[in-house]
Every structure is written in structure tokens, then in C-alpha cells.
């Protein structure tokens, strides 16, 4: 107890927030957390609802779906079915964090530690964020996107713009090239390029479609020319570049949605790590504050209460169960890595020979920088965490009568649980794998998509039919979707719908 507590009351004010932030920044520096500058914004609960509805983008273009989101949140908030998050943090430089004015002093401190130093350092350090997002340009880009959408609405009408955006949103999950490094842009560059692109792109598209078939039919079948030559996983990009009928401004809208999808792509893949990292650091920082006497015991009790509700994991048979809580899993794993470093057991030495007994700050920092959920779990999920959470795996095979428990938290099960959990966070397993297979550029211009079934899981027919309509709107000609399992077409969808069953191949 070398310091005097900074505050004792639960009321916060700007001086106190500033003072706490200063102390936390010092502590974060000791722990070698590397962050963007922080911009802490205090907002009211109504503004928080607005921020929620725009999925955390500080500036979004107008779209009815955000209105729907807002109404939904407003309704459940007013009825008390849902509390608002204490904080929203945006991956930008400076890193913007929203704090609600209703929070108590403890809560503000917790949020500063969690968001401004936890999430912030994760955004800056993790390789996915480094590769896929550019924190310094995102706000600029959103400003550009919003202005562009508004301009299009004035020029072509709200409905026309909405139709394109609706369609793009339906395939927003297919807007990323996983194997190519994108390059982010700033607003001026983007505007400049956008103008050039408009003309240039249209010319290119026209070139592609100018191919007038002059050879006889025989030859056409033979030459085996296929477009695209390789299957394309980035549907939005493919449509933006190749859809025959889109106007330049429509292509630009497709691009905007694609860019925003790209911005959110890392967040989807690092949920456990990101939340685990932030939770681990708010916990560590709060304890350090307490150890140094900056906060009182009462403050600490209040903190522990809300901390434990954040990392609550209801068991699978509880009525509150809704999947594995990423905060719990992430926090447990991060804490366990520290434990393995500091107090390794015999088991740890067997499982983690390279990190047992090493410097925990360096090890954690390495883990944070170089993994995503899938690989992080595969690398670091320890038997102890599996035992603590009592994880077990089940396999539901529709060809068998019963669901089988395939592994539990015992010696023979650890590795299997670890692999199964890792696979569960593999984006490729979670979303159907759909790629552009071919375009009949010399015939009816129809677009053929292939879905590769994972573990024989079929597509959900109703929503797939709907999405296909959206793709049809963007493409302008017939769209076919074949669902394949072991190179065999199991099911086909067509838009416009076809009567006769598909018998090709």
C-alpha cells in the first residue's frame, strides 16, 4: 500500500477518468502492451444504441437493415430484456472507445483497462489485423463510403441503391480473398482511384464480354476454355470485376461492401483470442491497481462481481447455455499460459516443453501476435483448461441412430477435444464453402457456383434460394448453384428456378 486510493466514491468525473487512465497507461507500459493512441468518448445510452445498431462502425452508410437492428435493440432494451454493453471499441488509430455515462467509476476503469489497453493492443499486434485492416485509414474510408452511397441515392434513387446493397449484404461473408494480401487506402486516394476505376473497369468488362463466338460448335467444346480458370472464393470481388450488366456506380457499391467485409474479417476469426486477451489484461491490471493501493477493497469487490459474470460459462444442459462463451474460454486459456510459464507442472512440461518456465509476458505477447482462434486453440488449449471447463465432444451423424460422445476430459481425449474445438472455430467449417466455378461467357452468360459440402452437410434450401436471387440481381443472367460432395452433385439451385432436375455430369 504505497499509494493513496484515487477515488472512493462510485461517481465518476473527467478528472478521475484522466487520472485512472494515466495510472493504467503506466502499468500497461510495464507489461509491455503496445497500443495505438486512445480516444475515450463518453456517450449516453441512446448514443450507445445508435453505435450498436451500426455494428460498431462510427460512420455508416444508410440502410434499412441498420434501422431494423436499431428497433430491435431499442425494443429489447426498453423492455429490460437486455442490458447494453458497457463499452464499444473501434479498430482505428487513434483507437476509439465509447464509455457509457451511466457506468460507475469502477466500470469506467474496467472498460479503460479492457478496451483501451486490452483490445487496443490486440488490434495493433495481431497478424490478422495487421494484414487485413489499416487502422489509420478506416475512418476515412467509412466517410468516403457514406458520402458515395448518399451521392448515388441522390442520383439514382434510394430504392436502386438499396437493392444493390441488399444483394451485396447477402454475400458479405464471401468478400475476402483469404490468400491475398489486400492494400488499404485513404480517402483521397480512394476518391481519385474510384473515378479512374469507373471508366477503366467498364471498359474491361466490355472487353470480356465482347467475345463473339465465330468458331463452330465443335471447337468450342474442345478448347476447354473456362472462365474463371481457377475457382474464385471472393464472390463480391468476382461480381465487382466481371458482372456484365452492372453500372460503374453499382460496381463501386459492391466494392464498398466488400471493403467493409474485409475490415470485419479478422474480428470474426479472433473472437476468443481478442476477448480473452482483453479480459486477461483488465483482470491483471485491476489486480495490479489494487496491489499498489490505487483502488480500494470495495472497488475490487465490485470489479470481481462483474468480472465473474463476464466469464460465466453455463453448462451445456443449462437453460442459459448458448454456446461456448468466448470470454471464458479466452480468459481461461490466457491465464493458463501465464500459469504454465510461471508454475509448470509435470503435465505442462510434457505438453508444452517450449513454453513451460519461460517469461510469461513474452510468451503471451507471441501468442497474441501470431495466431487466430483456430490455431491458438490448437496450439495452446491445455489439459487443465479442458478439465476445468469439462469439455467433451459429440458427433451427430445423420446415418447413425444416436449421437455419440467421442471424447471427454481424460488422457485419451485431450488431443481430440483440442482438435475438435479448433475445428469449430475454423471459418471454413462454419460457413458453407461456396466458390465461383465457371461462367458461360460464350453462351447464355450464366454463372455457376459450387458448394463443397463439409462432412456431407447440405445447404439450407430456403435461405440459399433467397441468396441466389440476390446474386442473380447482381449478375443479371441465370445463376446456378451446385452442392457437391466428393465431386458428385447432390443438389442444385437455380435462379430463375428450373423445372426439370439437373442431369449434367
Amino acid at each position, binding site marked *: 500500500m504505497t499509494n493513496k486510493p484515487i477515488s472512493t466514491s462510485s461517481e465518476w468525473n473527467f478528472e478521475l477518468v484522466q487520472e485512472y487512465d494515466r495510472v493504467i497507461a503506466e502499468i500497461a507500459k510495464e507489461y509491455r502492451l503496445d497500443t495505438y493512441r486512445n480516444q475515450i468518448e463518453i456517450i449516453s445510452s441512446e448514443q450507445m444504441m445508435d453505435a450498436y445498431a*451500426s455494428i460498431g462502425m462510427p460512420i455508416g452508410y444508410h440502410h434499412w437493415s441498420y434501422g431494423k437492428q436499431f428497433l430491435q435493440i431499442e425494443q429489447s432494451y426498453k423492455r429490460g430484456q437486455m442490458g447494453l454493453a458497457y463499452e464499444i471499441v473501434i479498430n482505428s488509430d487513434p483507437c476509439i472507445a465509447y464509455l457509457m455515462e451511466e457506468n460507475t467509476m469502477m466500470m469506467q476503469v474496467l472498460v479503460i483497462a479492457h478496451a483501451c489497453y486490452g483490445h487496443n493492443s490486440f488490434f495493433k499486434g495481431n497478424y490478422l489485423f495487421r494484414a487485413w485492416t489499416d487502422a489509420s485509414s478506416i475512418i476515412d474510408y467509412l466517410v468516403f463510403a457514406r458520402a458515395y452511397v448518399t451521392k448515388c441515392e441522390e442520383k439514382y434513387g434510394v430504392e436502386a441503391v*438499396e437493392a444493390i446493397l441488399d444483394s451485396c449484404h447477402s454475400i458479405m461473408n464471401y468478400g475476402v480473398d483469404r490468400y491475398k494480401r489486400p492494400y488499404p487506402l485513404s480517402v483521397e486516394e480512394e476518391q481519385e482511384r474510384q473515378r479512374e476505376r469507373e471508366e477503366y473497369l467498364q471498359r474491361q468488362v466490355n472487353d470480356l464480354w465482347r467475345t463473339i463466338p465465330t468458331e463452330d460448335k465443335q471447337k468450342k467444346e474442345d478448347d476447354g476454355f473456362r472462365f474463371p480458370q481457377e475457382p474464385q472464393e471472393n464472390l463480391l470481388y468476382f461480381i465487382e470485376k466481371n458482372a456484365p450488366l452492372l453500372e460503374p456506380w453499382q460496381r463501386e457499391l459492391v466494392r464498398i461492401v466488400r471493403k467493409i467485409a474485409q475490415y470485419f474479417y479478422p474480428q470474426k476469426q479472433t473472437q476468443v483470442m481478442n476477448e480473452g486477451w482483453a479480459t486477461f489484461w483488465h483482470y491483471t491490471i485491476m489486480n495490479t491497481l489494487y496491489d499498489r493501493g490505487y483502488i480500494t477493497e470495495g472497488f475490487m469487490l465490485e470489479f470481481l462481481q462483474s468480472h465473474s459474470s463476464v466469464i460465466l460459462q453455463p453448462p451445456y444442459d443449462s437453460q442459459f447455455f448458448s454456446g461456448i462463451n468466448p470470454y471464458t474460454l479466452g480468459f481461461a486459456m490466457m491465464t493458463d499460459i501465464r500459469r504454465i510459464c510461471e508454475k509448470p507442472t509435470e503435465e505442462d512440461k510434457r505438453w508444452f516443453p517450449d513454453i513451460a518456465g519461460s517469461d510469461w509476458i513474452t510468451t503471451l505477447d507471441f501468442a497474441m501476435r501470431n495466431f487466430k482462434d483456430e490455431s491458438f486453440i490448437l496450439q495452446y488449449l491445455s489439459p487443465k483448461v479442458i478439465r476445468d471447463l469439462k469439455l467433451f465432444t459429440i458427433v451427430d451423424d445423420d446415418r447413425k441412430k444416436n449421437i455419440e460422445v467421442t471424447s471427454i476430459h481424460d488422457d485419451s481425449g485431450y488431443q481430440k477435444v483440442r482438435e475438435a474445438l479448433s475445428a469449430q472455430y475454423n471459418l471454413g467449417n462454419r460457413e458453407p464453402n461456396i466458390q465461383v466455378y465457371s461462367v458461360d461467357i460464350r453462351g447464355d452468360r450464366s454463372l455457376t457456383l459450387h458448394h463443397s459440402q463439409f462432412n456431407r452437410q447440405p445447404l439450407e434450401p430456403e435461405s440459399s434460394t433467397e441468396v441466389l436471387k440476390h446474386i442473380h440481381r447482381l449478375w443479371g443472367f441465370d445463376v446456378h448453384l451446385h452442392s457437391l460432395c466428393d465431386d458428385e452433385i447432390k443438389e442444385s439451385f437455380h435462379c430463375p428456378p428450373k423445372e426439370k432436375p439437373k442431369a449434367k455430369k
Partner: protein
Amino acid sequence: MSYIVDRRLNSKNKSTVNRQRFLQRYRKHIKKAVSDAVDKRSITDIENGEKISIPSKDINEPVFSTGSGGVRSRVLPGNKEFVTGDQIKRPEGGGGGGAGSGASDQGEGMDEFVFQITQDEFLNFMFEDLALPNLVKRHLAGDEEFKYHRAGFSEEGNPAQVNIVRSLKAANARRIALTGKKRRQVKELKEEAAKLSGTEDPIEKQYLADLLEKIASLEGKIKRIPWIDDFDLKYNLHVKQPVPKSRAVMFCLMDVSGSMDQATKDIAKRFFLLLYLFLQRNYEHTEVVFIRHHTSAKEVNEEDFFYSRETGGTIVSSALKLMDEIIDERFPPSQWNIYSAQASDGDNWNDDSAVCYRLLVDNIMRKLQYFSYIEITPREHQALWHAYERVEAQFPQLFAMRQLISASDIYPVFRELFQKKATAAA
């Protein structure tokens, strides 16, 4: 060092536009919910907001997802009793992954999307597409409202109305006109000077010096022409024009005789309330005249019209007569669009229906834009209805009559009577 920004005073309605977009998109659903709600509400409650619910499948945003089937493996927490190799029965009805778990995360439980609209939005939806028919007489009431129109340009005005482009054009033209001759001279002199430049001959040298002097003096003169002058200034001209306004008056005639029981009166009042709300909201400058009658008619204020309990026998023509008098007295048909809505249970004094017929046909109908009659009765029609049928036959454009049986008919009938016509009957 972190920045700390207080944003609480920033606007909190960032989502308003998106909310409006949503309402616009689902107006069909909302309208249906509104019209259902109007029927269910009590009189005093009609002006509140409303809870709207839309089947969530209609507003889903589709994405590709996997259906049930195939092999799924899942990791779950909180194992209590299972060991490897245990077989669990597949839960009933659940297709896929939610083995043994009560709460499936497939989200199938959602059925309706429920949200609240405000009172203002509610009324907007309620009165959408409704209009007073035949609102054509426009009267130039010159002293009431003006609008400024652009009317070209003027030489004078106040500084705020300077038209910069025009002014600079004028200045430019003036400068060109005033300097043309001198600039030509300068050009010629310069050419001559260019020829002489570099000469060694003293006379020519002297001549060149003279030339240069002349050029300098001319250029000085050109420079002294003012860049902009008072009379270059042009101003935007705005003129005031009176706005023609349509003036309209609505006569509400209600039967309060003894034969109207409480339920019937209630229906009539609700009808008029709806009408009154509609006028108040969509036609700001509309006058409303309330007339209630039993054996004799009386003009009353809004309060009495809706809440007074006076009653007696029934002579419908008394109300029509009073209305005719009021029209003559206060609302000359040449200046006013006159409307009338009448509600009754159809009961009338025996010979009076014929009188009503004559009054309407001979006198009132030619002064009116539209007459609507609602009869609130589940029974057979009586003399009054038949008399009015003859009126309708003679004035099919201007006369409408409907029968109301229960409260749930009010809103549909109201909509029918005041539906916006595709082409205004001119």
C-alpha cells in the same frame, strides 16, 4: 496520453434515417397493423403510438447457411456424466447440433419482429392515401400568404442579393469595351518596337524610346480602368406573389335522437373523431362545423358535439336546413369547398325523408363538393336511406353512402369514403 472526449451532447438520433428506411420498406405490414389497431382502440386512445409486429421471416436478410444433415461434431462444456463412447438419443424435432442442449443457437424460436412506432408515425400511416375529394375551388385570398419567386435580375438591390456571376460578367464586358482601342494601339506599337529593337541608329533609337514611352502611358491608362464599377453590379430579383389557397369547411351532422342507443352513438362519435383528426392533421386551414340534431338542430362546439348527452325525437331535415343556412350566411360556395358528413341510425320522422330529399337535391347538393352519409344500423333500411339512394343516383360523383354495423367497420368505411382518387374528378 489519451484524449477524453465528452460526446454526450452530440445528437443521439444517428439512427433516425435508418429507422425511417425500415418503416418505409415495411409500410405494407405496418399499415395493416395500424388498421387493425384502429378498430381495437377506444375513442380516447386513438392518438397513441402502436406496437407493430412483423413476421420475422419477411424481414430476414438471407445468407448461405448449412441445413440439417451430414456429420457434425461439437464441443460442449460442463460434462457431468458422460464417458467416451456414450450414446445419446437424438432430441425430438431438433435436426442438428443442439444435442441435449435446451437452447439451440439456430434461432428457430423467433417468430415475430416487434417494435414500437410513435404517435406521429401512427397517424401518418392511418391517414395515408386519404384526401378530401374534389378540392378544386381555389380562392385568391391575397393578404394571407405570400411566396417569393425569382424574377430575373435587377440593377438595384441589397448587397445580400448580389449576383456575382452576372456582376463580374458585366464588369468584364465593360473593361473589354473601354480598353479595346488602346489595347490595339499597344499591340501595334509593340510590334513596331520589336522591329526596331537592337538598332544602333541614334534616330531610330530616339524613336524607339518614344514608342516605349507611348506604350507605357497607354498601358497605364488601361490599368486605370476600374476592375469593377458601381453600375456593373447586378442583383437577383425576387417578387412577392400571393399564394392561392383552398379554403374548405366540413359539416359534421350527427343524429342524437332517442332511437340512437349508446353503442350507435359511440360508433358515430368514433367516426367523426376519426374525421376530425384527419382534417386537423392533413388540412390545417379547414373549418369544421358541428351540428347535432334530434327534433331540432343546433350548432355546437367540439366539446359539446362529442360529449353532450342531450336527446329527443328525430327530424333529420332540421340539421340539413341549419346547414344550408350556415352555408348561406358564412361560407359562400364561390369561395369555399364545402363538405358534409352525416351519421344517423336511419330513423326519421315519417314525412321528413321526402323533405330531406328535396332539400338536398334542390338546394344543398349544388353548393357541396362532397356529401357522405353513414347509416349505423344492423336492421333494414328505412325511408331516409331510400331517399338518399335517389340523391346518390342523381349526384353519383358527389354523394356517397355507406352502412356501418359494428365498430370494426368504421376505419374501412372511412378509408373508402375518403380514398384518394387516381384522377381527381374535375
